C-alpha cells in the first residue's frame, strides 16, 4: 500500500462528503463521525447519481437521485436494491486523511 495525504478531517463536514479525482474516477470521501472516514466510488450504479451529495447516516449513504442506500463498509446496496460500489482503503493519522494510492490507481513518485 502507498498512503497519500489528501486533506484534513475538518475539510469534510461531519456526516458529509467531498470528492477526490483519481485515475479510477471520482472517489467520495465520507465522514461518518468525528473521526471516522470511508472512501468509495462517487458514482451510483443505478443511474450514476453523485453519492457524495447524498445524506450520510450511520455508516451508510443514500443516493441523492433515487434513494438507494449503500453500506460504506462493504459498498453493497441495502434493502431490496441490488448493486455494489467500489470501496477503497482510507485511514486517519493525526487528523490527516490518507488514502491508498495503489487502490485508486495512482503510482506514487519514489
Amino acid at each position, binding site marked *: 500500500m502507498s498512503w497519500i495525504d489528501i486533506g484534513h478531517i475538518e475539510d469534510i463536514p461531519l456526516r458529509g462528503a*467531498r470528492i477526490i479525482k483519481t485515475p479510477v474516477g471520482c472517489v467520495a470521501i465520507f465522514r461518518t*463521525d468525528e473521526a471516522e472516514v470511508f472512501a468509495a466510488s462517487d458514482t451510483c450504479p443505478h443511474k450514476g447519481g453523485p453519492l457524495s451529495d447524498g445524506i450520510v447516516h450511520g455508516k451508510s449513504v443514500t443516493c441523492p437521485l433515487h434513494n438507494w442506500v449503500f453500506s460504506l463498509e462493504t459498498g453493497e446496496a441495502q434493502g431490496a436494491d441490488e448493486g455494489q460500489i467500489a470501496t477503497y482503503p*482510507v485511514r486517519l493519522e493525526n487528523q490527516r486523511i490518507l488514502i491508498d494510492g495503489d487502490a485508486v490507481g495512482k503510482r506514487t513518485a519514489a
Partner: protein
Amino acid sequence: MTQKLVVIGAGMASGRALEHLFDASPDAYDVTLFNAEPRGNYNRLMLSPVLAGDKTYEEIVTHDDAWYADNGVTCRFGEKVINIDRARKVVIGENGEVPYDKLVLGTGSNPFMIPLPGHDLKGVIPYRDLEDTETMMNLGKTPGSKAVVIGGGLLGLEAAAGMAAQGVDVTVVHIMGHLMERQLDEAAGYLLRKSLSEKGIKVLCKANSKQILGDEAGHVRALQLDDGTELPCDLLVMAVGIRPNTALAKAVDLEVNRGVIVNDQMVTSDPDILALGECVEHNGAIFGLVAPLYDQAKVVAKTLLGQDATFVNKEVSTKLKVTGCDLFSAGDFADGDDREDIVFRDPARGVYKRLILKGNRIIGAVMYGDTGDGAWFYNHIKDATDVADMRETLIFGPAFQGGASADPLAAVAALPDDAEICGCNGVCKGTIVTAIQGGATDLGAVRATTKASNSCGTCTGLVEQLLAATLGDDFVMPTAQCICGCTDLSHEDVRRLIKSQELKSQEAVWQELGWKTRNGCHVCRPAINYYLLADWPLEYQDDPQSRFVNERNHANIQKDGTFSVVPRMWGGLTTPDELRAIADAAEKYNVPTVKVTGGQRIDLLGVKKEDLPGIWYDLNQAGLVSGHAYSKGLRTVKTCVGKDHCRFGTQDSTGLGVKLEKLLWGSWTPHKVKLGISGCPRNCAEATCKDVGIVCVDSGYEVSVAGAAGMDVKETELLAKVATEAEAIEVTTAFIQIYRENAKYLDRGYKWVAKVGLDWVKQQVVDDLENRKALVDRFEISQSIYRKDPWAEHAKEPAKYAPLANLTLEAAE
C-alpha cells in the same frame, strides 16, 4: 552490598514502584527521593473530590512521613533536580549532589497552556497539583465569583464541577462539537452536557478562544471568543491536555521523542536510568491515566532487582469523577471501518449504551446513566471474547434473563403530569390519565370527556399512547404510521414531543425519544432537522448534512449531476440590468439551457457543481439572490399586472406580490409554498390553485388557501375576505406560520388543511386576532435568522464545492 537508588519525582507511578520494591526486597537499595512539589506522594486523581469538598487533603496522602522513615527513604521534597551528570553518576539537586547506581525518572507531565494572548496574566492556571486545587477552592469563598474553564475533557469537567460545587458560576468552553470527544460519542456527550447544565454549569461547544483579557492590575478579567463574545471571569482554568515532562531527560541527552523512550523493561537509552509514568513513551504510546502506570511500576521494581519483566500496554477505561454524571468509556469507538454498532437507549432513565463490534468481538463501549455493566464489557474487550452466541442480548449485560426489550411507551410514560398533550385545548397528561382511569377507555371517550385531540388532532398518537400506557394489555393500539425504521413514533408525535419536552438538538431527539439508530436515516433526519429549526429558530442551528442534495447545494441537481440556478424575480418583475447579468453569467459559465419557468423567472440549467459559487457571486453583484427553486420553503409569488396597467385590475396585485415575496422569502416550510396574486377574478396569475392565492376585488382581498396543481389539482378554499392590503399580508403570514408549526414534513398545505380542517385554521388565524398576531410575531423571529440569501453565504466558500484533492495530476518533480 546496598546500592544507591535515586528517584526523581514523588508521583503516582514512582510511589507505586517504591512500594513494590520494598515489598520484594526492603534492603536492596538505599533510596533518595526528590520532589519538586513541597510534599510527598498523594493520590493526584483524588484532587477532584478534594476540590468538590468530598474529601480533605489528609485523606488522599498515600505515603506519610512515617512510611518514608520506616523504609529509610531520604526525602528531598520541595527540591527540584536541575541536572544529571551521567559520566560521574550523580544527580544535581537545587541543594546539592547525590550519587546513584540506578536512577529512576518519574517526572510526570506538564499541563499544556495554549499560548493565547494573555495566557500569562494572574489568575490563569492549569489543573495539576494541590496548589491549583487550593486556588480554585479559595475562589468559592468569595460569593458571586465566576470561572471559565477552557477544555471539555476529563480534567476540565472535573475542575468545572468541583468549582460549581463550591458555589462558583462556571462556564466551560470547548472547541469540539461535544464534550469529552476522545472518550464519548455524541449521544453520551449530549447526556453529559445535560447533567452538567442541571448543575448550573454553562457549556459552550465549538467555541474558539481568541484572547484572555486582563485588568489594570494584570489579573484576568474575561475570556474573549472568536465571535467576539466576552465571558467575564475571576479565574481561568486551562485544561486542554498534557505534555510529557522531558526537559531534564533531553538536557542530559537521553533518547526522547514525545516522551522519554523506554524499552519493555522500562529502561531508557542509558542502561542505568529507568523511567516510568506520564513522562515516558513506550512503543510510540504516551500515557495519561494511571492504570498502565501501575503496570509499569511493577516492571520497574523487578528490573531494579534484576528480575525478568515485560511491560504490556493494555486497553484503558475511563470514568468521570463528577457526582451525578455516570459515564463509562473503553476501547475504540470512533475511527475505523468494518465495524458494527449495537445501541440501546432508555430515555425515561436517561440511559444510553453503545457497543462497537468488529467481527465477533467487542472493541469499544460507551455508556451513560447506567454504567453498572461497564466492567463486564471492559473485560470482554480486553480478553477479545467471542460474543457470537450472546450477540442478540449482549447490550443488556450479564444479568440479562431473556425477553426484556426497550419499552416503546417509555417516552410518553416519562412525561410529567403537567406536560401539555393537547395544545389546542390546553389539556395536560394528568387530566387525560385521570379520565382514562375514570372509564374513558378509547380515543372517542377521551375526546368527549377532556377535549384532548378534538381539534387539530396532531396529538392523537400521544393520547393513544397514554391509553396504552395506562390500560396496559386492555388497549389495542391502532397502527399509527411511524416515520421510518428508526423510531416507532409518528411525525405528529415527534412534533408534539419536541415542543413539550423542549428538545432543541438532534442528539436530544435521538436520545429522549429513543431512536434506534445512531443518527437517523435519509427519511427521518431531514424531517427532524426541519421540526427543530421551525420550533426553535434561535436555539437550533440548521444542519446542512440533514438536508437533501438540492437544499444542501442551494441548486437543483440534474440527471447528469450538474445543477440548475434560478435567481429570484420578485413578483415576476425584472430589469434590463438583471437580464444582462443573467445573460453574461449564462455565457461565462457555458450554461447549455436557459429556460423561462412556469413560475415567472429564468432557469439556468446545466451548471457544474464547482462553478456554483462563481455564478452565484456574479449574479449577486447584479443584486440577484437565490430563488429557492430547490427548497421546502417559499418558491415563487406569481402575479398578474394588476390595476397599474390592466383595464380590469382592482388593486395593485404586482405590488402586493412583491411585498409578500420580500417578507416570506428564505423561510423553511414543511413542503414548498407557492403564492399567486391576481388583480381581479379573471385570475391571470392562477391564484386559485396555489398554496395561498389572493384574488383582488373592488372591496378588498379574498385570501384563499390549500390549492394544488401538481400531482393533484384542487381549487383553493376561502380563508378570509379582508378590506386592506395590510390585513391580507397578516392573514397570509399567520397561515404560513401555523402550517410551519403544525404540519407533518412533506405534507403540502392542502394535505395538511384536509387533516386539521379549514374551520380550525380559520379559528386560529382569522377569528382569534391575538393568536394571529402571535403567529406573525413568531414568524418574524424565525425570519430574523432565515431571511438571508444563502448564495451570498456559500459564494464565500468556493473550496467546499471543489474536489478535496486531485490525484490525476502528476507531481511537478
